């Protein structure tokens, strides 16, 4: 399976798919959902032309990734239902591809980027959407197992890249870590606390200690790692417990931003995970805090 990670030569087909993915990345960074819609339409037009392997698998992979980026943008605009539909169909396409390859006697493809991008989307959606979506597409437990497997694969793949192309390796690991954080936040909401603690420990072993299980960890520990993941999870825990107020939110959000800025100054990492949908998330959290304030005022 290793050959599929190492940019196997597929001629111009691969080039065309890479061009589409690059345009998708640029459009995603700019929040341009119209452009991604256009790319999906372009892939749709090309569908009848793709009839052979390995082009079919490459096409599926490209289609899934472009679709998932659209889903993340839709989630950022509050269109959770449509984003869930996209996640559902992407998973169906993935399963279809697996069964097709199995029927042809071809090896399974790891599709790590599709997997962790799908988990990123699902985690982001489920931690915010209504409770009925708990088991949509994948259950929280399945999401965690999938993430563990995708993270193992991604770390194996990026190990040799750390010397040859460290920026690429760190970008992949960063994206995997971001997806893991979304999954952990989703599981914190839906699974028993003991499970969430186990997940946090696993994440910390993998990424070198970023998250803390206990709420209010930042208040009780004067020496803190300047990690954007850490601040993000601190904010989520307090929000989940209904203990987040506007002053705390502003303080923690500023620390999160400072951590992100520090990473941006010191490295060339792709920080789109942190920045995408962040503005909306902050606005929603701030509105919740204000509503709580109004509720408290009315009650008193």
């Amino acid at each position, binding site marked *: 399976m290793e050959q599929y990670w190492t940019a196997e030569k597929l001629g111009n087909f691969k080039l065309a798919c890479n061009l589409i993915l690059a345009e998708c990345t640029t459009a995603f960074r700019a929040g341009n959902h119209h452009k991604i819609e256009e790319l999906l339409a372009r892939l749709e037009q090309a569908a009848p032309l793709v009839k052979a392997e390995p082009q079919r698998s490459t096409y599926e992979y490209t*289609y899934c990734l472009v*679709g998932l980026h659209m889903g993340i943008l839709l989630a950022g605009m509050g269109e959770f239902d449509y984003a869930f539909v996209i996640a559902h169909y992407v998973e169906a396409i993935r399963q279809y591809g697996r069964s097709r390859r199995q029927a042809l006697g071809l090896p399974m493809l790891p599709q790590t980027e599709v997997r962790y991008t799908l988990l990123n989307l699902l985690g982001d959606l489920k931690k915010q959407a209504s409770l009925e979506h708990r088991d949509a597409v994948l259950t929280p437990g399945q999401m965690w197992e999938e993430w563990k497997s995708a993270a193992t694969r991604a770390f194996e793949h990026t190990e040799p890249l750390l010397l040859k192309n460290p920026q690429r390796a760190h970008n992949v690991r960063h994206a995997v870590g971001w997806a893991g954080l979304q999954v952990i936040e989703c599981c914190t909401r839906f699974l028993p606390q003991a499970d969430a603690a186990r997940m946090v420990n696993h994440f910390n072993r993998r990424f070198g200690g970023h998250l803390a299980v206990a709420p209010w960890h930042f208040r009780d520990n004067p020496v803190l790692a300047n990690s954007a993941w850490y601040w993000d999870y601190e904010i989520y825990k307090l929000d989940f417990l209904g203990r987040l107020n506007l002053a705390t939110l502003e303080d923690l959000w500023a620390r999160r931003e400072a951590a992100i800025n520090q990473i941006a100054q010191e490295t060339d990492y792709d920080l789109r995970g942190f920045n995408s949908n962040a503005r909306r998330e902050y606005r929603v959290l701030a509105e919740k805090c204000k509503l709580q304030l109004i509720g408290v005022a009315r009650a008193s």
Partner: protein
Amino acid sequence: MLTFHEQITKSLLELSDLDRQLLLDSIERCFDDIRRTRGWGMAEVALALGVHYDTLSKLRNGKIAKPSFDLVAGIHLLAEHSLDELLGISAKAARNGQSDQRLTLVENQIKGLMAMLGQVMIQVGIPAETETVAAGASDAPIPADLRQGVLGAAKAGSKKAAAEGRGRNAALRKRTAERDAQQGRTGRRKSA
């Protein structure tokens, strides 16, 4: 027998020093245009072409004696250049008497490639010699209902967000309106 890519690559690269310099100049113009039109640096171009950043750097510095056809043509495609520049270089080399038959082949192949490009970029792919028809090849690569599921949700979600004043264009319009209001402008914006 040489494959499609080997034939073109071999022909393209048997150029004189002068032609190689012309090729480098043409690539530089492509990079300028890619930066201007797409706002992409070398990192994005490397990502788009699936090559290492250092490969592009070496190519621009003339340190790659034999760049591949995929790389050279890919840069031209990204810059939305018509590949005429490549043809120009080839034609010049032909005039110098270095090669005639091979360069004619290159021209024909690139013209064929351009014709295939047409409206759908992905048509570039599917080089004939790598096409191994698999079982169920007459089917679309992904069942139509699954594709339509993704595309339909994308369109509907995008349309709904736009209608409700969310999304990129709405945000841009809102910022422009706010700026206009601050500057005391009203009514329709006039172009300069």
